[in-house]
C-alpha cells in the first residue's frame, strides 16, 4: 500500500524513518512522528470502526484528545489494550491495531442493521423497551445488547508493565504548552519560580505548530522551539511531554499521567510504562486551549466529516491530506485558515460560510488565492455511507430558517468549524463557577476558587497578541508573589491576521420531507432528535437530559458535544444557555489506565509483608505459611506428605504430651512508661490494675465505649513505672491508636508514654508438660519452681549471654512460658530452644495447632471477639470490675446486654464424635423447620480435639447459660451439611485450669 495522501514537503514527521504497522491485519507504512490516525489517513483509510449504538461507520473527527470515536484495540508486546485513540497513539514499528465494536468485520457489520430499522433506537429506548416482560431480560435482551454494544475488549491477562507514582511540588504548574503555556512558563521561570510545564502531546507548542503567525521575527513554531529548549536547560523547570494533567483536587493538588513507553514497541527494561504524578502547586496556570465545535447537519458522522482544525493539523504536522476534494463548512474565520493551507499545498477547497457578508484579513487572503467561497450556504447532509462522496448543500435565508434549492457538491471530506469551545475542565474541577461568555457562545472560568488562573483560548481569548501579553504578565506576577524576584520578561511583537466575528448559527434545519440523523454526541450516537424526545418527555434539568440520552458521557466526556447539546436545549426551551447550565466536569479529563492509578501497589506490593526474625528457620524447616494480618506465620511444619490436618494434629498432640515451641513474635507489644501508667491501665482494662506487683503479669480485656470487647492480652509490670502490654496480632495497631487517643485527647493530664515495641522483641512460646524442664536447661541460674516463677510471673535472665524476658503465661492451656529476646537475637534463641529441646522431644508448632489448643481449652480469640460481643458473652464476668470506672463500662448496663437470654460462648460436640462442624454453621432446634429457620447461634471456631480425639467447636449462642446439655443441629447450607450436636461447656479440656499452674 502506498501513502497516497502524504505530501512531500510539509510536516514535522521524520521521513528518514519508515515504520510498518498493521491495521485489521493489513500492513501499512508511516513515518516516525506519525500518530496511528495520521498514518492511516496518509494511506487513504477512513473507516475505523462502528458506532456504539447504531453501528454506523466511523472515521476520524479530531486530531488529538478531542477525538470522540476513532478508537482501536491496540496490540503491543503481546499485550492488548482497548479503546486507544488513534489520534493520540504514536506510531511505532510493529504496531498492530484492530477495529472495535464491529462484527464480523468493519466493512460488513451485522449490528449495522440497527441503522436500517425503520424506528431508530431513540433516547430512552433501552429504558422503555427492555423493561418488560421482566423474564426476557436475562435470556433475550441482555445477551443481545451485550453482543451489539460495547467498545473494546479488556485483557484478562496480568499486566506485566510497571506503573509508577511520583510526588512533586512546584510554585507554578502550567497545563498545556501552547502560546499561553510557553509564555507564562518562560516569564515565571525567568523570575526564579519552580515551574512544571505539562503537554499532553509529544510535541510542544500547541496551535503554534499549525498557525501562520509571527512572534518577534520568528515563525510561531520557531519561537515555540526556542522557548522550549531554553526552558529545558533551566534547573528550576520541569518540562514534560506526553503528560496530561487530568484532575484538579482540593488544596491545589493536581494529578498528571505521563506516558513514557506507549509510543515505543516495548517498554525498556526497568522503565515504567506510565507514571502518575501527584503535584502540589502553589499556583496553577491552565493553558489547556480550546476545542473546535462541530456544526450539526444531516449524517454529520459520516467518515470524512471532521473538524477543520484537525484537517489543518494533519496537513501541517503530518503532511497528510484528509481529502483531495475538501469542502470547508464554517461559521467563522477558522475554516478559512484550513482552506488556505489546502490551497497552498495544491488542493482546491470550496468554502461554505453560513455568514452573509463577513469581511476580514483572512477572508481577503482566501479570496486573493482564488478559493471558491459560497456565503450564506450550508451543508444539509453528507452523502456516502463508509466515506463522504458528496455534500447536499443549500443557500440559507438570513433568518436561518429557510433552505434554498438543494444541490450536490462532489467532495471527499467535509471540514467543519463551528467556532471554539474553551477547555475549562480543570478550572471547573477546582471548583470554579464558570460563566457564559455571549461573545464566544461558550463557558469560560469565572472567579478562581483555588489558586488557579486560566489563560489564552481556555479563557476565551482567541487572539495571539492578547494571549501572549496576558500570559507573560501572569507568569511574572504569580512568580513574583512567590519568589519575591522582579525580573520581568515582556511580550515580543506579534503579527497575526485579524479575524471577524463568528455566526451564532450552528445547527442546520432539516429540509422538508427528509429525516437525516443530525448527531450531537458522536461517541454515544446522540442525535438532535434524541434531545428533542427527552425534552418532550419532560426532562428539564441538563443533568437528567444527559443521563437519559447519554449525551456527553463515557470516555469522551462531551469534549465536542457538550455546548451544542446545551445550545439545543436552550433553543427548544427558549432559554439562554447560562440558565440551562452545564453538567459537572469530573476527573479524569481523558481516560487513565487502572494500572497508572494503582501504580506499584499490586500483588505483594499492595501491603508490607512482615516476617519474624525466625522466618528463615521456618522456611528451612518446611513451614507452610499463612497470612496473619500483615504477617507471614507458619501454619504448620510439614513432614513428608502430611496434610494440614495431620500436621497440626501431630504438633498439638506433642504440646499436650511433651513440649512445643511457637513463634509469637507477631503479637502486638506496647511499652508503657510513666508515673500514671497504672492509672491508664486501670481505665483502659475492665479489671483492676492499681495493685499489680512488679514482676507480675495480668490478663486484661479492653472495651470500646459502646461496651463491645476491643482486644485482650496480658500486661506485665516490668518495674515501678514501666509496663509491657501485649495485644492480639490483628489489633496491635488499633490498640496503640486507642491508647494514644485517650492520652492525647481525653486525659492529657495523665503522665504516660506509649510506644510500639512489636518489632523490637522476638517471642517464643514454650508450651507443654516438659516446658519447665526445658526452661531450666535454657536458664540454669533461675528458679523455675512454682515459688520462683509462679503462673503469671515474670523474670529477666541471660540466655547464653543474651538478655531475655521470661513470662509465665499460657495461651495453649498447658504449663507454658514465653521468652522474649531482642529481635536480632531471635534466631539464636530459637535455635537454642530447638537444640536443647531435643531431649524433651520438642517440635515447633504453627498457628493451626495453636488454634486447636486454645479452642479445646475454651480460650477466646479473634473469632469470638468479633466486634459484636461483650465481656459477659465470653464468660469474662470475673474480669469486669464493679468498683471502678473504665472505658465502655457505662454501656454494659444496656438492656440488651444484661438480658437473661443473652448470647454466650459455649462448646459444641457432634453427637457422632466424627463429623467436623464447618465454621459459620448455624445452630437450630429443628433441622427440618420451615425457612427461615430461627437461628439460635453460630459456630465461631472449630478444631479436632487432640485431647479427646474428636471434633470440637466453640459457638456463640443465645441464652447460652441454659443451653448446655441441649441437643441441636449445626447447619451449613454452604457445605450442605446438617450435623446433630450437643452443647457443652466451652472449657472442654482442663476446665479448672490446673495445668497452667502445675
Amino acid at each position, binding site marked *: 500500500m502506498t501513502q497516497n495522501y502524504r505530501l512531500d514537503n510539509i510536516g514535522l514527521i521524520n521521513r528518514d524513518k519508515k515504520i510498518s504497522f498493521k491495521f485489521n491485519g493489513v500492513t501499512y507504512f508511516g513515518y516516525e512522528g506519525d500518530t496511528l490516525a495520521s498514518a492511516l489517513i496518509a494511506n487513504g483509510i477512513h473507516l475505523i470502526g462502528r458506532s456504539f449504538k447504531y453501528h454506523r461507520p466511523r472515521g476520524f473527527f479530531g486530531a488529538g484528545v478531542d477525538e470522540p470515536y476513532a478508537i482501536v484495540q491496540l496490540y503491543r508486546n503481546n499485550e492488548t489494550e482497548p479503546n486507544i485513540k488513534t489520534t493520540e497513539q504514536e506510531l511505532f514499528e510493529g504496531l498492530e491495531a484492530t477495529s472495535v465494536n464491529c462484527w464480523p468485520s468493519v466493512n460488513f457489520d451485522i449490528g449495522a442493521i440497527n441503522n436500517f430499522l425503520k424506528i431508530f433506537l431513540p433516547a430512552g429506548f433501552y429504558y422503555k423497551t427492555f423493561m418488560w416482560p421482566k423474564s426476557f431480560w436475562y435470556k433475550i435482551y441482555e445477551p443481545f445488547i451485550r453482543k451489539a454494544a460495547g467498545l473494546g475488549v479488556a485483557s484478562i491477562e496480568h499486566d506485566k508493565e510497571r506503573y509508577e507514582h511520583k510526588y512533586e511540588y512546584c510554585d507554578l504548574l502550567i497545563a498545556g504548552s501552547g502560546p499561553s503555556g510557553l509564555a507564562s512558563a518562560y516569564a515565571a521561570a525567568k523570575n526564579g519560580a519552580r515551574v512544571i510545564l505539562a503537554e499532553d502531546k509529544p510535541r510542544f507548542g500547541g496551535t503554534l505548530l499549525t498557525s501562520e503567525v509571527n512572534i518577534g521575527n520568528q515563525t510561531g513554531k520557531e519561537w515555540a522551539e526556542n522557548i522550549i529548549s531554553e526552558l529545558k536547560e533551566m534547573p528550576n523547570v520541569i518540562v514534560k511531554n506526553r503528560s496530561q494533567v487530568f484532575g484538579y483536587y*482540593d*488544596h491545589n493538588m493536581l494529578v498528571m499521567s505521563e506516558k513514557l513507553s506507549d509510543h515505543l514497541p516495548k517498554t525498556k527494561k526497568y522503565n515504567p510504562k506510565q507514571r502518575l504524578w*501527584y503535584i502540589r502547586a502553589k499556583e496553577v496556570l491552565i493553558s489547556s486551549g480550546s476545542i473546535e465545535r462541530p456544526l450539526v447537519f444531516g449524517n454529520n458522522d459520516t467518515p470524512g466529516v471532521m473538524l477543520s482544525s484537525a484537517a489543518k493539523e494533519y496537513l501541517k504536522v503530518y503532511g497528510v491530506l484528509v481529502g483531495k476534494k475538501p469542502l470547508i463548512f464554517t461559521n467563522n474565520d477558522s475554516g478559512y485558515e484550513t482552506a488556505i493551507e489546502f490551497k497552498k499545498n495544491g488542493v482546491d477547497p470550496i468554502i461554505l460560510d453560513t455568514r452573509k457578508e463577513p469581511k476580514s484579513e483572512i477572508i481577503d487572503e482566501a479570496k486573493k488565492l482564488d478559493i471558491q467561497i459560497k456565503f450564506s450556504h450550508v451543508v444539509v447532509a453528507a452523502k456516502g455511507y463508509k466515506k463522504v462522496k458528496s455534500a447536499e448543500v443549500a443557500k440559507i435565508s438570513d433568518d436561518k430558517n429557510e433552505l434554498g434549492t438543494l444541490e450536490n457538491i462532489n467532495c471527499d471530506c467535509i471540514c467543519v468549524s463551528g467556532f471554539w469551545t474553551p477547555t475549562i475542565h480543570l478550572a471547573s474541577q477546582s*471548583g470554579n463557577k464558570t460563566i457564559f461568555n455571549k461573545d464566544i457562545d461558550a463557558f469560560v472560568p469565572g472567579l478562581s476558587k483555588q489558586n488557579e488562573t486560566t489563560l489564552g483560548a481556555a479563557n476565551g481569548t482567541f487572539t495571539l497578541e492578547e494571549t501572549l501579553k496576558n500570559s507573560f504578565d501572569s507568569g511574572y506576577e504569580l512568580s513574583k508573589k512567590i519568589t519575591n524576584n522582579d525580573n520581568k520578561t515582556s511580550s515580543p511583537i506579534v503579527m497575526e491576521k485579524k479575524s471577524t466575528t463568528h455566526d451564532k448559527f450552528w445547527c442546520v434545519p432539516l429540509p422538508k420531507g427528509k429525516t437525516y440523523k443530525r448527531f450531537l454526541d458522536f461517541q454515544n450516537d446522540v442525535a438532535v432528535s434524541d434531545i428533542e424526545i427527552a425534552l418532550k418527555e419532560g426532562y428539564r434539568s441538563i443533568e437528567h437530559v444527559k443521563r437519559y440520552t447519554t449525551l456527553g458521557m463515557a470516555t469522551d466526556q462531551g469534549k465536542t458535544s457538550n455546548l451544542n447539546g446545551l445550545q439545543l436545549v436552550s433553543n427548544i426551551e427558549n432559554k439562554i444557555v447560562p440558565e440551562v447550565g452545564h453538567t459537572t466536569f469530573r476527573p479524569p479529563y481523558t481516560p487513565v489506565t487502572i494500572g497508572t492509578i494503582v501504580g506499584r501497589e499490586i500483588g505483594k506490593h499492595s501491603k508490607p509483608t512482615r516476617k519474624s526474625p525466625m522466618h528463615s528457620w521456618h522456611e528451612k524447616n518446611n513451614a507452610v505459611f499463612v497470612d496473619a494480618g500483615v504477617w507471614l506465620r507458619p501454619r504448620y511444619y510439614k513432614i513428608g506428605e502430611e496434610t494440614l490436618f495431620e500436621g497440626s494434629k501431630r504438633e498439638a498432640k506433642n504440646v499436650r504430651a511433651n513440649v512445643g515451641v511457637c513463634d509469637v513474635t507477631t503479637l502486638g507489644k506496647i511499652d508503657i512508661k510513666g508515673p500514671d501508667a497504672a492509672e491508664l491501665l486501670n481505665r483502659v482494662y475492665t479489671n483492676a490494675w492499681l495493685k499489680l506487683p512488679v514482676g507480675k503479669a495480668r490478663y486484661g480485656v479492653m472495651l470500646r465505649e*459502646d461496651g463491645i470487647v476491643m482486644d485482650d492480652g496480658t500486661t506485665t509490670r516490668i518495674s515501678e513505672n514501666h509496663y509491657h502490654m501485649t495485644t492480639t496480632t490483628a489489633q496491635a495497631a488499633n490498640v496503640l491508636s486507642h491508647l494514644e487517643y485517650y492520652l492525647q*485527647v481525653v486525659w492529657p493530664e495523665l503522665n504516660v508514654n506509649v510506644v510500639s515495641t512489636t518489632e523490637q522483641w522476638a517471642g517464643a512460646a514454650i508450651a507443654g508438660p516438659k516446658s519447665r524442664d526445658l526452661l531450666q536447661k535454657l536458664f540454669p541460674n533461675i528458679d523455675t519452681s512454682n515459688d520462683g516463677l509462679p503462673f503469671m510471673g515474670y523474670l529477666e535472665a541471660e540466655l547464653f549471654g543474651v538478655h531475655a524476658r521470661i513470662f509465665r503465661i499460657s495461651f495453649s492451656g498447658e504449663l507454658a512460658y514465653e521468652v522474649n529476646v531482642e529481635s536480632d537475637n531471635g534466631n539464636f534463641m530459637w535455635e537454642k530452644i530447638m537444640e536443647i529441646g531435643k531431649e524433651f522431644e520438642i517440635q515447633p508448632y504453627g498457628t493451626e495447632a495453636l488454634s486447636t489448643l486454645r479452642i479445646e481449652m475454651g480460650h477466646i480469640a479473634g473469632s469470638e471477639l468479633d466486634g459484636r460481643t461483650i465481656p459477659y458473652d465470653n464468660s469474662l464476668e470475673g474480669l469486669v470490675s464493679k468498683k471502678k*470506672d473504665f472505658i465502655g463500662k*457505662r454501656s454494659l448496663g444496656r438492656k440488651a446486654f444484661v438480658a437473661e437470654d443473652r448470647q454466650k460462648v459455649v462448646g459444641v460436640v457432634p453427637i457422632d464424635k466424627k463429623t467436623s462442624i464447618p465454621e459459620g454453621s448455624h445452630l437450630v432446634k429443628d433441622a427440618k423447620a420451615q425457612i427461615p429457620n430461627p437461628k439460635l447461634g453460630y459456630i465461631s471456631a472449630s478444631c479436632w480435639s487432640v485431647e479427646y480425639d474428636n471434633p470440637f467447636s466453640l459457638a456463640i449462642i443465645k441464652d447460652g447459660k441454659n443451653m448446655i446439655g441441649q441437643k441441636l443441629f449445626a447447619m451449613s447450607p454452604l457445605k450442605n451439611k446438617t450435623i446433630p450436636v450437643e452443647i457443652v461447656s466451652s472449657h472442654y479440656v482442663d476446665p479448672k485450669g490446673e495445668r497452667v499452674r502445675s
Partner: protein
Amino acid sequence: MRSQNEFSYGGDATVKRPELNKEVSDKDWDNFVYNRKSLRGKHKELWQHISGCRQWIKVERDTATHEIFKTVKAHEDI
C-alpha cells in the same frame, strides 16, 4: 502541608467524654457514644497523624470545600 493519606480520621472534636466515676444519664451517654451530626460547612474534627508522628490533632475543616482553617494539638482548644 502533609498528604491526607498519612492521617486517619477520628470523628467530631467537639464531643466530650463524660467524666469517669460520675453519674451519666442514659440520654447523655447515648449521645456521647452514638449520636453525631453530619454538618455541612465548618466542622471541628479529630485526626491522627498515624503514618507519621502519631500526634492526635484538632482540625477545623469545611466539609463541603475541604478547606482547612486551623489545626492544633488535640489537648488544645481550637
